[in-house]
């Protein structure tokens, strides 16, 4: 058991160190959702005062609607970014060192996943604190009940990043994947507009949005922020986590996947 914990703490410490050393990255990760909240959402303030959708019980301003989506955005970008660092590690050789540790590979990857999720959640809470100062009201207990949702969503997006990084040969390719994965995932979800709004413009778009696991991650965060249960969103997010983890494990399996071909 001990070697497991040693590895976990080592990976956590490394991520924490990286986090502390890259304060710019932390700030940059915060600036992105803040720009959406303070600039984009402010312009659309009255746009959504037309319908009441659960978990909300009354009309809300757009700034309030967009908060869970922006929490999701932080998790999404961080999940991808930490995978980017994996590609970097692989190119630099430190990854190889890590993967040679005499422990099951899934444990190594899980430790990595856990570490990057922890950092993401720290960023989400910082963002939520700024949003509260800006005047966004969320029930006090919502800040606690959202934690499990953030963990599940963080693990899901981190696993997706891991899976993607295992199939990417070079650092440069990853930038392309960012564009092909992050943007569609974010825009084709309920992060910026409620799904009924999507359905109004196109049924196909609405269907894609409803299938997008990121939508369910955002809804899971949204419902738990307002102390409500959303079993379907939880199930979808867990299912996606399992799928992405399986893909990552397959991709990082030395006897299969691209790791082997690249070796």
């Amino acid at each position: 058991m001990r070697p497991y914990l040693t590895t976990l703490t080592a990976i956590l410490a490394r991520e924490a160190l990286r986090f502390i050393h890259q304060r710019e990255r932390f700030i940059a990760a915060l600036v992105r959702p803040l720009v959406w909240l303070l600039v984009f959402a402010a312009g659309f303030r009255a746009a959504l005062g037309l319908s009441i959708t659960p978990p909300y019980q009354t009309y809300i301003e757009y700034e309030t609607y967009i908060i869970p989506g922006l929490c999701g955005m932080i998790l999404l970008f961080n999940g991808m970014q930490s995978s980017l660092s994996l590609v970097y590690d692989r190119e630099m050789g430190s990854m190889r060192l890590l993967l040679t540790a005499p422990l099951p590979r899934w444990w190594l990857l899980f430790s990595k996943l856990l570490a990057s999720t922890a950092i993401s959640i720290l960023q989400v809470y910082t963002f939520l604190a700024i949003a509260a100062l800006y005047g966004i009201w969320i029930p006090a207990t919502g800040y606690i009940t959202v934690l499990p949702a953030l963990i599940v969503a963080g693990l899901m997006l981190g696993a997706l990043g891991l899976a993607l990084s295992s199939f990417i040969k070079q650092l440069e390719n990853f930038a392309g994947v960012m564009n092909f994965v992050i943007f569609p995932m974010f825009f084709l979800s309920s992060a910026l507009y409620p799904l009924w709004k999507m359905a109004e413009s196109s049924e196909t778009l609405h269907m894609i949005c409803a299938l997008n696991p990121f939508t369910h991650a955002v809804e899971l965060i949204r419902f738990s922020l307002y102390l409500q249960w959303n079993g379907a969103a939880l199930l979808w997010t867990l299912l996606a986590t399992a799928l992405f983890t399986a893909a990552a494990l397959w991709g990082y399996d030395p006897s299969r996947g691209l790791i082997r071909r690249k070796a």
Partner: protein
Amino acid sequence: MRALLALSLLTTPALADEIWVTNEKDDTVSVIDVETLEVIQTYETGERPRGITFSKDFSRLYICASDSDTVQVMDPTTGKILHELPSGEDPEQFVLHPNDRHLYIANEDDAITTVVDTETREVIAQINVGIEPEGMAVSPDGKIAITTSETTNMAHWIDTDTQQLFANTLVDSRPRHAEFIKDGSELWVSAEIGGTISVFDVETQAETTKIDFEVDGVHPDRVQPVGFEMTEGDTHAFVALGPSNHVAVVNAATYEVEDYILVGRRVWHMDFNADRSLLFTTNGVSGDVTVIDVAERRALKSIKVGRFPWGAAFRPTD
């Protein structure tokens, strides 16, 4: 047996206070339970119910059935219409005199204010006022009644002893609602198109100040003050701003707007619960009632009622 009785006491909900809402297009009133914030009853009324108020002891409910040209008197415990009062044509809004007997009714189509005795069920006076009268108020001492006229843009001051006009004061375009505050020393009149509330000194009938509204991200044309109600001690006014879908919170001492709260579409009138901790606003276009936490100035919930809810009145049940 005793256990069964105790259980039934536990499971039978205590009667909670209610908010009664007229639904202009459904010809009904909806009854909202103040505890559960749900509609518990809907009663049929005459055509196009608008103004709504209770007698002092809450045993009778008066409803302006505008298109039926009558004021209906309902028994709030059964929802039965007891009788109708002669009201003049197209009664829109009314106010009950502190004597609990005389109803002052604005007859929108006739440019008349009708005074009806609710006991003898007879019209005791008809007073010519400006065109399209709407807002009605009576001073707490009962000596002055106010009618505001939408097209003439005036507040008409009526001496309730003689039932004669004794003053007319200009307000901004399309006045909608009037209210005496601070023990009857001030009169506030909202002007829908003018986008203001005019404040008058009752003693001199002179305008002392005007309150303006400005909602972020909403075109000024859509900021249309209509109904308003005062919090405990008349410290703050909550003002419905019509199609801007917001309620403004005005400090009654400084006349500054302190907050805007997002509610449903075309917010019109409102009323408080018993301790004035909750405010219920009628939102005409979205067909719901938004509940506002007064202390926190935050919308808690919007409750679906009938089509085009218009007026609201509170009824305690214990």
